[in-house]
Structure formats: C-alpha cells, structure tokens
C-alpha cells in the first residue's frame, strides 16, 4: 500500500539518476579510491596527496574514502560477486593474493611493464601483487618489517649494556629483565588470532637454527619447533604475558612504551609513535635475534594499491599508481608515515629516529614475504592457532606444529608457495 508506492518511487528515481549522463566529454573521470589508513599521519597524507594529484592532471578526479579495514575487506569479498567495487583499492600485502583469485583486481601487467620501472621494486613486496603466473594487479606502496625494541634502562639494571645478538643471549636477557614485583615482563609481542599474530610469529618459526631455516610449508622442521619452543617457554616461565594472545601489535607496543616490557617485537611504523615514550627511558632498536648468532629473520608487511575490476579509465588509474609509487613520492611517504619505500632507488630522508630506521632498513634484507598464496588466511590461521595452543593450553610445540601442517600441507600441495 503506502509502502509499495514509496518503494516504487525510490526505484523509479534511482533508475532515472543512473540513466542520466553525468559528465560532458572532456571533463575528468570521477574515480573512487578506498583506503583504510587510520593512523592520523597516513590518513591525512592520503587525502592531501589525492588532492595534489587531482590538481596535477585532468584525466581523472579521485574521490578518496576511508573505510575501516575489516569493512573494506568485506566489501571486496561481496564486491567479487556483485561487481560493486571502487576503482582504486588499498589492500594489505598478504591479503591481495586472495582477492586476485576472487577476481577483485584488474590485470595491469602490460601497462606496468611499459612503464619500465618495475625492476626498481624489491622482490618481496612486488610479489605480493602477483598471481601464481606472475601477472601484476597493483603496486606495493609502502613496506615495513619487524625488529626488536630494547628498553636500555631496564637492560642496564639487569647488567646488560648492549642489545642481544643471538637467540641464546636474547633468552638470557628476557629472563633477567622480567620483574614480577614491578609488573615488568621480559618480552612482549602480539600473538592475536588474526593476521597480525601470524605476522609477528613467523620470524621465530622461520628462524635459522644451525644453518637451517624453513618456510610455512615445513613447520615440523627442528628450527621451527625450536622457535616456537622458545616463545612457549617465555610464557610458561612468566617472562611473557599470556595476554599476548589478545594483544594487537599496537597493544604490544604500548606495553613497551609504558615500561611494562623490557623488550618488544615492533614494526617500522612504530618509529612514528615513539613520542609516547618521550624521555621516560632510553631505548634502542636492533634486528630480531631469532636464531644463530649473526642471523635474523623478519616478516615483510606493507600495503598495496590495486586497480579493481571494472574500473573506469584504467589507464588514468594506473597513471595514479605510477605517480604514487614513483621514487620521489615513496621517499616522502616513508618519512611521513614511518614506513620503508618499496623501491631501491627511493631515498627517504628520515627526520627522526634515523638510527631506528637504519635498523629496519637493514632488517629488510632478512625479511620474508608471506605467501603470496590465495589461501593464505587458512595457512595463517593454522600458524596462530598452533602458537596459541602452546601458550594457552601448554601443548608441546612439535604436536601443535604437526597439527598446523595437517591443515597447511593439502593447501601447498595443490598450489605450492612461490
């Protein structure tokens, strides 16, 4: 009755609006860009940069919208079916392979190869924009990795005046700096049941032991079991809080910044947040001492930008990507957001925490990508579940990792890791 009239009215109106030609020939194509930058520096920067790009050319006009990360991923998933996608979309590096498989992103290999600058990009980040045949669907815009933050004051109290250089020394320091009376844990990291947890767990599982190290397709190897055992012992002995299974990386960093943890696994972007520490204590960064002396492992993180299927004016959008990931702009972004450029010819003139950034840049040489693999979320779930069962239930690491491999092996047998 009344409601039917209303619905018909709305339907009629929407039909009319969608049928109207919106712009005359020659004016810039309206293009949508969805991102999930939520740290204020990044969030502001993307808006300013999009405005800048809009003023530099008149081929496309980009409308930039913030969508919370979880919601954005849902939009991509539903969009795979409905076709309702933005023109340019931001995505976390390990997630992109799945969305490529779902057909969310457009194959832009030829346009990018014409550009001729692809060989400047680091292999790890660039691989996360590819499908299993090596075709490209976007560009990595920034990258980051994990390293160790050390509270030098607490270390000094425990008798150490330097940063740990091997796993054995690290284990000593964690034990020595734990002070239950003062509510200080030796080590803090994030082991939450999301991709963030896997991100921080992988360096320890892929660590080098006696010259050997493995990837996620072989987690029952001794080196992986050893890595997980070290972490499990930390929790069992009270050197690391069991709440790490509920902490995000931000929570873990906040523990360190509040002086509640002597050592913490932190990411490059945390360098832009060290003002929360201020002068409370002296701190230093060093590479993650995950294995034999002189070795380190880390995980590559970072965000990619891709062109979504069915985008308007793909050429114009790809031009934006090329501008965004040019060597100058990457250098700028790295400084603003506390990240690392994804190309070797970009120079980032960090105006703060220069020493810290140097550590992370060095660490990039030892950082490994996750996948890329379309079924990475399932692999990831197996990894963090195995670790959590060790921390929470006290399962033996060998058993936990064996259980993880039961889920992972069929996946990598069907589609091997690159």
């Amino acid at each position, binding site marked *: *009755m*009344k*409601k039917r009239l209303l619905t018909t009215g*709305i*339907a009629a109106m*929407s*039909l009319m609006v*969608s049928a109207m030609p919106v712009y005359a020939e020659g004016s810039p194509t309206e293009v949508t860009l*969805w991102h999930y930058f*939520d*740290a204020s520096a990044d969030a502001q920067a993307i808006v300013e940069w999009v405005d800048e790009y809009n003023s530099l050319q008149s081929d496309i006009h980009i409308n930039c*919208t*913030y*969508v*919370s990360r*979880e*919601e954005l991923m*849902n*939009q991509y*998933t*539903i969009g795979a*079916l*409905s*076709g*309702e996608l933005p023109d340019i979309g931001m995505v976390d590096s390990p997630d992109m392979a799945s969305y490529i498989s779902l057909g969310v992103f457009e194959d832009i290999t030829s346009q990018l190869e014409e550009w001729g600058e692809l060989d400047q990009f680091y292999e790890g980040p660039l691989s996360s924009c590819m499908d299993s045949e090596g075709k490209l669907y976007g560009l990595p815009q920034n990258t980051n990795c994990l390293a160790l933050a050390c509270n030098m004051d607490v270390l000094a109290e425990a008798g150490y005046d330097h940063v740990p250089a091997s796993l054995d020394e690290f284990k000593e320091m964690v034990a020595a700096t734990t002070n239950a009376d003062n*509510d200080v844990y030796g080590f803090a990291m994030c082991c939450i049941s999301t991709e963030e947890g896997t991100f921080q767990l992988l360096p320890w599982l892929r660590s080098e032991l006696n010259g050997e190290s493995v990837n996620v397709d072989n987690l029952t190897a001794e080196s992986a079991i050893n890595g997980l055992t070290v972490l499990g012992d930390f929790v069992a002995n009270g050197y690391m809080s069991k709440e790490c299974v509920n902490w*995000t*990386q*931000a*929570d873990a*960093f*906040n523990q360190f910044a*509040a002086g*509640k943890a002597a050592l913490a696994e932190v990411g490059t*972007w945390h360098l832009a*947040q060290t003002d929360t520490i201020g002068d409370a204590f002296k701190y230093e960064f060093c590479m993650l001492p995950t294995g034999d002396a002189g070795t380190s492992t880390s995980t590559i993180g970072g965000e990619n930008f891709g062109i979504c299927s069915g985008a308007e004016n793909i050429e114009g959008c790809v031009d934006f990507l090329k501008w965004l990931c040019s060597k100058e702009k990457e250098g700028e972004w790295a400084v603003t957001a506390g990240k690392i450029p994804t190309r070797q010819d970009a120079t980032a003139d960090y105006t703060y925490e220069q020493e810290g950034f140097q550590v992370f840049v060095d660490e990039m040489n030892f950082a490994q990508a996750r996948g890329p693999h379309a079924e990475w979320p399932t692999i990831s779930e197996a990894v963090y579940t195995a670790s959590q069962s060790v921390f929470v239930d006290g399962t033996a690491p060998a058993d936990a990792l064996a259980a993880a491999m039961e889920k992972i092996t069929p996946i990598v047998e069907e589609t091997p890791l690159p």
Partner: protein
Amino acid sequence: MKENVGQKEVRRDIRNSVIAVVLAVFFLFPVYWMIQISFKSDAETFGKILTYYPREFTFEPWLVNLQDKTFLLSLRNSFINGFITMGITLVLGIPAAYGMGRYRVRGGSIFLLTFLVAQMLPASLTLTPMYLIFSKMGFLGTHFTAPVAIAAASIPFAIITLRPYFKSVPISLDEAARLDGCGSVRAFISVMIPAVKTGIITIIVISFLNGWNDLVYSMTFNVGEAMRPLTANIYKFQNAYGTKWNCIMAYGTILVLPVILLFIFLQKYIVGGLVAGAVKD
C-alpha cells in the same frame, strides 16, 4: 492493632527499598564503570593502577567524539536509520498484527511460522545475498537500504508482540465502530490503534532502537562517509595506536544516551508492552 500492622509494613517497605537499591547499584555498576572511564585522561586510562573514579577529571574523550567533524552527520544518519526502521515496522507490522489477532485466518499458523522464522536468520546469512539483490536493483547507498534490512527483523517482533494486544480488545468496541458506520479500515485506524496504544509505543521504541543500534547493515550497504551512522565510530578508537578505552567509553555513553532518554520518557508503556506480548500468548 492497626498501628502495629502499619509499622510492620513500613519497615518491610523500607527493607525492600534498601535491597532494591543495593541490587541496582550492583547491577548497574558496569554502566557506572563505563561512564567513569570516559572522563579519564589517557595517562590514567593506561596507567598501572586501576582507579574507580577519575583522579584527573577531563572532558577530553568526550570532546574527541563530539568535535569530530562527522559527528553531527553520523548523528543525523543514526536518527534517520531509527526513524525509517520505525516507520516501516509500524506501517507493515501493525496491520499484520491486527489481522492475525482479530481474525481467524486459514493458514494463520503458516504466517506465524514465517514471521517467527524471520527472526532466526543471522546477519552472516543474509548480508551477501541482500547486497547482491540491492546492487542489482540499484538500491545501495540510500537512506532506506539499511532500514529495509533491519525492519525485516523488527516487523516479526512487532507482530508477535502486538497480536495479543489486538486479541484482547473487547468486541464491544468493534461493534460500536460498525454501528457508527465505519468500514473495516476506518474502524482499524480510529478505534483499534488507539486501543492498543501501549503496545504501539513499545514497538515505536524497540524498532527505533533496532535502527539506531545497527552496525552491520549500515556499514555494508553504504560505504560512503556521508551515510555512516554513529555506530560506525566503534572502529575509530581501535587502530594502529591501540585501543583508547576512555574515548571508546565516551563513544559508548553517547550512543546509549538517546536510548536511555527515550526509555525514561516511555518507561511505563514499555514495561506494559513487552510483558503482554511475550507472555499472554
């Protein structure tokens, strides 16, 4: 004799009131907790010691929420969600409740089963297919999109709640209306609806709440910032910087205030409405 009985009653009255207050304090303590965190400074919120009231009282978390440039816009969107959901529910639910309560219909149990079953579908089940249909219809991104989905849950609730109200309206009212020459529809509008006023006010509040509290549908069907409701701000304070509890609790209190205000005004009617609907049947 009378005095003694009176005194005993007064004492019991006081004793019960005291117990009631204690119960209320105990039960509402988490609400107090939420509100008191919202007035704490960052340092105190993350501090090592847990405090039961803010040592340093500050409006900062509230200002962060209220001064956000999209705050008024989100507030408007939440109100719109609430009102449209309420509208759809009333327009469709009231007549249906009347039909099912006042008449003996063949297949009435099928109708009832359908309405009951509709309350059983979780959002994870309905989200994607609804999106697909709305997308094909070009119905996405309007102020009506999310309420249409939300109303699908509040209409059955309205029907199941109002049906016994309509059932218990005395037939004499019906007959009196007919005698006055009213057709069915006019009888319905001018006699029946006022007769179940209590129940209707209940449905007004509950359906408004459903629209106001919605997060999933609004977020999924309307990606643009222009349409976001207040509930979407839940993501704002859990980001790369960690969880800002004081701002989140301020946000939670702001979200709940209209609910509480509405409720205080209509308390009497809600109590009556919920009670009759679920039980008298």
